[in-house]
């Protein structure tokens, strides 16, 4: 997910900033600054710092510019409206959405547990959660096969029951959830930590049960982090390639999501390279649309 080209770092839903948002007075850091505060940019920065900063921006933005330059615009409409492309897009959006819902249902409770656990337990859980994040997705795919494959740890038992998960759409969803869950958990946990427990204590002293506290205080206060985490999770699921390729394969209409469609197009005959680029453009547009939507939602959100 790229945040290149965005001027206001507050609004970038990367977890280091957005997750720490939260309108609680306990949240410090850059995100706690009112964005309307008058600030004079760059005044106290050493000038040489600008050189690597500019190079960094170029590193993030130039590839996309190159992509747009390289694009054969004449073929774009046909490429992105082809049945194969639409099929891949539809499959991608559906599976990524399902994976995100699964991640939210499982990840929010995990994040809450982590944020409110004693130090050692939180550390253990955080390390375990971060593992898929630092592993190459390909390794994740192999690991998923080892678990759910025909001769896998659970796969054998499932096969007896007549269930085979690898190389199905369900496998796509599982692979996406596997790689995207850490993004959701880590960013929501950060938000919950930033909120602290003081408001929850007040709510309890006013007579609210644990569930009421969670529903009426904890969740609303964590909403910015929740949204940031969900968006990250969805974006990651949408772009998931490695684990899907190994665990779910590349069957058109069943497991060929956008990234796999792009890869397939790219690996095809040279003439198809333009299709790959056009499909990439489509994926970029979808990602941008998600970011813009969320941004709009948050601008009008309850503060």
């Amino acid at each position, binding site marked *: 997910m790229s945040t290149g080209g965005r001027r206001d770092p507050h609004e970038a839903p990367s977890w280091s900033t957005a997750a720490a948002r939260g*309108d*609680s*007075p306990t949240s410090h850091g850059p995100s706690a600054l009112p964005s309307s505060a008058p600030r004079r940019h760059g005044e106290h920065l050493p000038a040489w710092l600008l050189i690597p900063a500019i190079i960094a921006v170029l590193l993030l933005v130039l590839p996309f510019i190159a992509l747009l330059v390289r694009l054969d615009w004449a073929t774009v409409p046909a490429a992105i409206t082809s049945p194969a492309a639409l099929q891949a897009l539809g499959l991608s959006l559906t599976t990524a959405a399902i994976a995100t819902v699964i991640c939210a249902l499982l990840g929010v409770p995990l994040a809450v547990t982590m944020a409110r656990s004693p130090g050692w337990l939180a550390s253990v859980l955080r390390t375990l959660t971060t593992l898929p994040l630092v592993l190459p997705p390909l390794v994740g795919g192999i690991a998923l096969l080892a678990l759910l494959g025909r001769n896998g740890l659970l796969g054998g038992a499932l096969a007896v029951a007549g269930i085979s998960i690898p190389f199905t759409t369900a496998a796509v969803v599982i692979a996406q959830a596997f790689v995207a869950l850490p993004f959701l958990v880590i960013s929501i946990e950060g938000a919950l930590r930033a909120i602290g427990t*003081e*408001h929850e*204590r*007040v*709510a*309890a*002293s*006013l*007579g*609210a*049960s*644990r569930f*009421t*506290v969670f529903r*009426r*205080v904890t969740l*609303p*206060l964590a*909403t910015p982090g929740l949204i940031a985490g969900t968006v990250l999770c969805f974006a990651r699921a949408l772009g998931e390639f490695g684990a899907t390729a190994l665990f779910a394969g590349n069957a058109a209409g069943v497991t060929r999501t956008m990234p796999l469609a792009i890869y397939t197009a790219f690996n095809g005959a040279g003439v198809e390279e333009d299709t790959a680029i056009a499909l990439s453009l489509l994926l970029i547009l979808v990602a941008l649309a998600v970011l813009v939507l969320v941004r709009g939602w948050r601008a009008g959100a*309850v*503060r």
Partner: protein
Amino acid sequence: MRVDLHARRGGFTMSAAFDAQPGEILAVIGPNGSGKSTLLNAIAGLLPAAGSVIVGDRVLDAPAGPGAARGTHVPPSRRRIALLGQRPLLFPHLSVRENVAFGPRAQGVPRAEAHRRASLRLEEVGLGGLAGRRPADLSGGQQQRAAIARALAAEPDALLLDEPFAALDAPSAAQARRLIAAQQGDGSAIPIVLVTHDPMDALILAARTLVMHDGAVVQSGSTAEVLGHPRSEFVAALAGVNRLEAVGAGDGVVHAGGLALRGHGDALSAGETGSVVFAPGSVRTESVQVLAEDGSATGPNLWTGRVTQLDPIPGGIRLQTAEHPGIAVDCPSTHAVALGLHPGQRLAFRIDEADVSIRVGS
């Protein structure tokens, strides 16, 4: 409410016991780290503690008895004890009215009724017009008043206040203080425990005061007695008064810190030991012309000294003399100007009998 609690946090132990009647404000004073907040959090059930807490006829905490009797610990959400701290901690995502209605709502009161009660409470604290706003739109003082309204709207059986005025500017603090005072002796009165580092809060609001030091209660009783005649140097320093060991000199006079003093309270017979207490502000600073021709003090409650130290205090100057280094004297600013106060100056000091408290023993 009856409290007898012992808590341990790391190497720190806190131990305190007290009673507070409905409609009474009990002040708990002490410096930072004396265990005041630990005590309140333990009463609110937010910290593990041993001992007992009884509010009205409800036992909230009881130690495990011998044999089969199990200890009691009612969780915070069912204790019906409201705790209000230095920061208002309003829920930022709810309107002010919804904040105040939170307690009733959490306890199952229907929304409309809860909002009606919240509006009434907000009227009481003078925020009726701001009910629809978000907490962030309110000033610090308004937020704290809303927090008081929220705490009271939950209709608690006891109210715990942890430095509720400390973060407020002077006018807001005064407003909040009046609000708390108004709860006293109210029809639906509940016991209120007010933790403060400022003894003057206790003086204004509380009939009884408890002083904590290093996790223990060092003095308790009526506020007038605790602050009027501290029983230790520690409490005297906290209350900002002079406290001296005294010996009876007969004829109603005591000798203390090199001074001959008459006062009120206990009478010390000749040779009997006790203590005297007086406020630095009760001492009148005068030019030495009031003294006898030879420059000596002419009677009790009158002494002289050479100024060694001048320190600014609100509204005046605190001075100390070479002759009586343990005795602080406050001189109002206008008087200080008239006298032309300066180090090395020789001055006479006078205090009324009514301002000197004498007690037998420490």
